[in-house]
């Protein structure tokens, strides 16, 4: 920790020297002290300087890419001496390939991507997750015609649907559609995406079988009452509008976009499915993290500062954020589409806007911390839906989580910031933390990250044990 302390103080003293010089009339003794500090720290400073300063970081046009955008726009990357080019990626597949082949140094990623790469789903690669990016940023949207049929099964209060809306209400619509010979197609963004697992979780909790992946069925439709397929996030509204899919699960603002364009209605948000859904991570290659430890640590420091800014003063910066993200090179959706979910006013229907306080969290409640428990949850879902084809021991789950999730890197960066006074020590969970603070699921099941197999046993739908 001594070293990290020196890092923080030296980086700050670098900023201070200019002021000292410009002040001119500073007391001699002050100058002497600064000089002495510089001499002492020079060795440590050279050792903690980022090895690689020019970086290319990828992102997908979603509200949870915000920490990267803010770190860039607010100059946090530059404060670390990092010259970062942010590059929007066409879809999650392209993004993953570019992280693996080194075109991107780091990226906004789905937790299932580094984890999937570690267990051999869609290729093998050694990737690591070095920070969390965004909690509760997705929703499930149904097209207007499905919603009209579904609404008749939803309990109402004062003329408005009672939330959360359970997939039970959708089940008769699925059955009627299938009986008429039409496939009930739903969109999600990537086979190992948070959105795939969230949609499946919600459907299964309401008794709708979303289909299983098998070694022979890479599309995950075996035994399914619905057909899930992949569409890139920003194209969801257009694909729904074209009628190719009847509904979808995607991150914001692409659900709000559907309401405002009048083509669909969000039926359930992430936080209603799981009160603390860790949506994205900041990922990179293990080889990159090993080769450039100071760079990676500096990236995480900048991202933590951005996440602090995002949740600061009860969301005072959120309208600025909506304006920032609405620029075409970032998310590019209209400001009025972005501002709702970012300020906690969620629009479900034209005349149904409700406060949604738990959505789009970046820092509060340790939202940026890469808990092993989060990794375990994703791995259980991969097993539940058959992407992990055989039963694994609890120790195996723990081993994969420890290999891919790197809270150690996050802790080093956070400790630098705590040492320099840029972060509250209480905002960093204790070193022995394994899972995130307890949270609730829509099906009432209890998730204990230490017992993944017991958690799998608690589901009615999905593979478990040796099946």
């Amino acid at each position, binding site marked *: 920790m001594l070293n990290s302390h020196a890092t923080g103080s030296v980086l700050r003293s670098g900023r201070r*020297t*200019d002021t000292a010089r410009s002040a001119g009339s500073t007391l001699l003794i002050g100058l002497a002290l600064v000089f002495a500090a510089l001499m002492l720290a*020079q060795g440590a400073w050279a050792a903690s300087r980022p090895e690689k300063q020019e970086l290319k970081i990828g992102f997908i046009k979603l509200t949870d890419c915000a920490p990267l955008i803010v770190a860039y726009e607010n100059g946090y990357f530059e404060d670390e001496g990092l*010259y970062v080019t942010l590059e929007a990626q*066409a879809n999650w597949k392209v993004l993953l390939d570019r992280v693996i082949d080194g*075109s991107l140094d780091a990226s906004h990623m789905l937790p299932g991507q580094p984890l999937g790469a570690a267990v051999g789903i869609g290729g093998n690669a050694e990737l690591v997750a070095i920070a969390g990016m965004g909690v509760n940023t997705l929703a499930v949207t149904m097209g207007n015609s499905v919603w009209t049929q579904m609404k008749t099964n939803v309990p109402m209060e004062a003329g408005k649907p009672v939330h959360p809306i359970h997939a039970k209400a959708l089940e008769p619509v699925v059955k009627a559609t299938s009986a008429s010979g039409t496939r009930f197609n739903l969109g999600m963004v990537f086979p190992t995406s948070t959105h795939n697992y969230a949609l499946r979780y919600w459907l299964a909790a309401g008794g709708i079988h979303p289909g299983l992946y098998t070694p022979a069925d890479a599309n995950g439709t075996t035994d399914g009452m619905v057909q899930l397929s992949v569409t890139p996030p920003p*194209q969801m509204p257009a694909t729904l509008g074209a009628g190719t899919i009847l509904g979808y699960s995607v991150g914001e603002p692409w659900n709000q976009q559907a309401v405002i*364009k009048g*083509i669909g209605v969000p039926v359930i948000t992430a936080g209603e499915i799981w009160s603390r859904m860790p949506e994205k991570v900041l990922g990179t290659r293990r080889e990159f993290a090993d080769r450039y430890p100071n760079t990676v640590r500096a990236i995480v420091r900048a991202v933590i500062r951005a996440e602090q800014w995002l949740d600061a003063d009860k969301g005072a910066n959120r309208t600025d954020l909506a304006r920032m993200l609405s620029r075409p090179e970032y998310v*590019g959706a209209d400001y009025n589409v972005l501002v709702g979910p970012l300020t906690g006013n969620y629009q479900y229907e034209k005349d149904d806007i409700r406060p949604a306080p738990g959505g789009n969290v970046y820092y509060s409640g340790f939202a940026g911390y890469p808990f092993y428990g989060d990794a375990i949850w994703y791995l259980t879902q991969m097993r539940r839906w058959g992407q992990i084809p055989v039963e694994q021991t609890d120790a195996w789950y723990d081993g994969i989580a420890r290999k891919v999730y790197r809270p150690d890197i996050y802790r080093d960066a956070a400790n630098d910031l705590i040492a320099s006074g840029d972060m509250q020590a209480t905002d960093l969970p204790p070193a022995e933390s394994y899972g995130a603070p307890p949270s609730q699921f829509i099906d009432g099941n209890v998730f204990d990250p230490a017992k993944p197999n017991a958690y799998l046993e608690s589901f009615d739908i999905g593979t478990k044990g040796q099946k």
Partner: protein
Amino acid sequence: MSDQSVMPPVRSLGLAERIRLIWQAKAPGIGASLGAPTAAILVFLLIWHGLAPRVQTSLGELPGPAQVFGEFISLMEEHQMEREKADRFYVRQAERNAAWVAEDPTYVPVVAEWTGKPTFIDQIFTSLKTVFAGFALATIIAIPLGLLCGSSAIMQNALNPLIQTFKPVSPLAWLPIVTLIVSAMYTNNDAWLPKSFLVSAITVMLCSLWPTVINTALGVASVDRDLINVARVLQLSWTKRIRKIVLPAAMPLIFTGMRLSIGVGWMVLIAAEMLAQNPGLGKFVWDEFQNGSAQSLGRILVAVLTIGLIGFVLDRLMLSVQRLVSSGDAR
């Protein structure tokens, strides 16, 4: 100012003459007067203005000419703003480098390029660079190949089936193969030539190769027999024969081929950039489509018109080069 008046007659090139006639038939005296095109453009703008608001999309109504012009202005302003931001970035970087060197004299300062987004203007230049690179590659390969085919009936027979098979292949079919091969063979990510640039340029090359090959072969094959016989009588060497007789005679057709090539290349490039997300105007269009904001349609239309105008200018450029070469040949 008609096309014909600029064009001096070229003797001894019956085929080239005929080709030229075909071109002129396609564009009958566009420049005859300034009035007709102006009127046509005005009518087009009026129809556009009248019909656009009736087309409702999920992004609002189709923008009319006035809105598109407004988007054009705002794109130019954005370009200006980005340049100013870049200037400030370089100032900050220089200050930081000075401070870091002051702290540790052994530090070798990094001079990073501006990390901001490429503006519309930047994307235009990226596309132009790429198309010229692809076109230059295509020309370097196509002219010798065409010479070979044109000067030997056996080669012509041998290569014709291959050329005819590859010629109609769409760029979108080549793209995945080119991407995979370039990714596999070109692994240095820090090189000065970005991978995406290579992929786009090679795709352009593959598709714009064929018009030049075919026209060069045609040009070489149709060189006047008398000239060839004269060369034989004078016992000119092979290289001299190519340089003094074949190339000058075939030049007009070679340039016809190159002109077709650059047109094909430009169309191919935009499609390739859209699909592969490689920097350039195609990516600009795709990004705006994905954004789906209220300005997106207007910005896409600005790009569409720009693509068209650049294509037009490229074609005219090649045409004037072609004429220059033809007239030189006639003298």
